[in-house]
């Protein structure tokens, strides 16, 4: 509830800031923003009394034409009760960014809302990372709340009926307000089993190659193998990173010119993705561990002298031919040749 109140207050302030008398220059905009909220509210409430009241209605009408809902709210009631509607907040953010006001950028960053997707205003690129950060965090927070509520329910249910499966006698502690007769117990146990089965099906879909297997034990085997291979991949990649860089501090300023931009969309991955080999096969672990050493070895001579493409290609090819994991390697060498 506090969250909603906070949102509404900030939304309030923002709308008031935007509704300020526009005919004045941008300096007055900042002046109005520095005003405490009650004064701004007063200005808003009594447009006729304000010195620039005559100009206010048309100006805010012109600005807010595309947002009739906001206009109706402002025109209709004297009381400013803004609902903490995410759609409205989103529109307000878009509008504020769209207006391109420099002094408005900090207040936009303060409001916790989703970043506008269609924004192309260059002046707001600075506040984008902050907004995006908060937006992502807010999304995550909402999902966390849902997950937490779900989890608390499932944990409670599990605690209440978890012992029932293991012991011969069913000693079940139930939550307040639930009966302990056998029917409801059985129902609850069945519901829990169904939930677990549904999640197992999800897992089966997630892990490649599990759909055809029937039987819990084998499916669990596959899942265990998959998790182990993923963990091994993490180890291998971290080793590779340590091998590639002499020091930990990655020279990342050249990769990421602006932090806020989506990294996966920039041009480098398009160049890089042909190089990234596809799924590292599960059985090729021994060869994978041998690879980074070879990488280190042939990187030194390449640094030493300024090489042309041909010299660069041959050590790479020799290393690739050494690697016997069949699927990924020929693909990679073909793609490398295409690049050059």
């Amino acid at each position, binding site marked *: 509830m506090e969250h909603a109140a906070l949102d509404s207050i900030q939304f309030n302030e923002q709308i008031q800031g935007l509704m300020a008398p526009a005919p004045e220059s941008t300096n007055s905009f900042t002046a109005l923003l520095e005003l405490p909220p009650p004064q701004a509210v007063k200005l808003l409430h009594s447009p006729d009394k304000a010195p620039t009241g005559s100009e206010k209605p048309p100006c805010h009408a012109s600005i807010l034409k595309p947002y009739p809902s906001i206009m109706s709210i402002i025109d209709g009631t004297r009381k400013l009760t803004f609902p903490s509607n995410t759609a409205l907040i989103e529109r307000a953010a878009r509008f504020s960014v769209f207006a391109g006001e420099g002094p408005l950028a900090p207040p936009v960053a303060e409001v916790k809302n989703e970043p506008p997707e269609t924004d192309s205003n260059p002046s707001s690129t600075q506040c984008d990372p902050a907004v995006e950060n908060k937006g*992502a965090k807010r999304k995550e927070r909402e999902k966390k709340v849902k997950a937490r509520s779900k989890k608390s329910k499932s944990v409670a249910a599990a605690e209440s009926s978890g012992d029932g499966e293991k012991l011969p006698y069913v000693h079940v502690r139930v939550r307040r307000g639930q009966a302990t007769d056998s029917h409801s117990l059985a129902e609850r146990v069945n519901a829990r089993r169904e939930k677990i089965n549904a*999640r197992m099906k999800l897992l089966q879909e*997630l892990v490649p190659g599990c759909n055809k297997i029937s039987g819990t034990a084998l499916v669990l085997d596959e899942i265990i193998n998959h*998790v182990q291979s993923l963990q091994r991949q993490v180890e291998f*990649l*971290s080793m590779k990173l*340590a091998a590639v860089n002499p020091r930990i501090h990655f020279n990342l300023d050249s990769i990421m010119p602006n932090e806020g931009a989506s990294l*996966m969309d920039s041009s480098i991955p398009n160049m*890089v993705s042909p190089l990234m080999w596809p799924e590292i096969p599960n059985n090729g672990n021994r060869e994978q561990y041998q690879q980074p050493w070879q990488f280190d070895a042939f990187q030194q001579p*390449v640094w030493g002298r300024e090489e042309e493409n041909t010299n660069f290609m041959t050590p790479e090819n020799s290393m690739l031919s050494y690697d016997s994991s069949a699927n990924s390697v020929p693909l990679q060498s073909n793609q490398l040749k295409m690049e050059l």
Partner: protein
Amino acid sequence: MRNQRSVKQEFLRKWITGLRRYSCDEKKNMSFLERKKAIKLSADIAMASTRDKTTRWSQALIANASSSGDTLTGSSKNNSSRSRKKMLMMRRRRPKVKSAKKEMSASCIAKRLVEKRTRKLKNLLPGGESIDEGCLVEETLDYIESLRAQIEVMRYLVTASQLIINPYP
């Protein structure tokens, strides 16, 4: 499912800030294994913190890292101790399974196999020993997804840094 791209971005950002702390603290050159450990640890912590302690495996990961005296997790020590106590208490509450029957029926065999594997899976998952079976599947799902995202980001970084060192003319 979660928005994968934003999760990856968040993970990358946190990972890089964690790594920068390493490079600021120690000016001396670290050995290869130390570097690898540092990279992996900061990556794991960054991945766990993207879940922001909603899942048990992320809590356990951070708790383990902070217990080993790592400097990166200073802020989360309080939460981790609390969560660890909770996990220990949960373990004590659950009674041990006593198998009264010893006949080898098919269902018993099947149950034993499944139990073995769930135990193995629990050992794999960070902080998985004291997880209830109902939550185990959820946690594994989440963990697998996060691992995949982590691997993709790491791969991207590896190839990008290789490109920087050996740029194509």
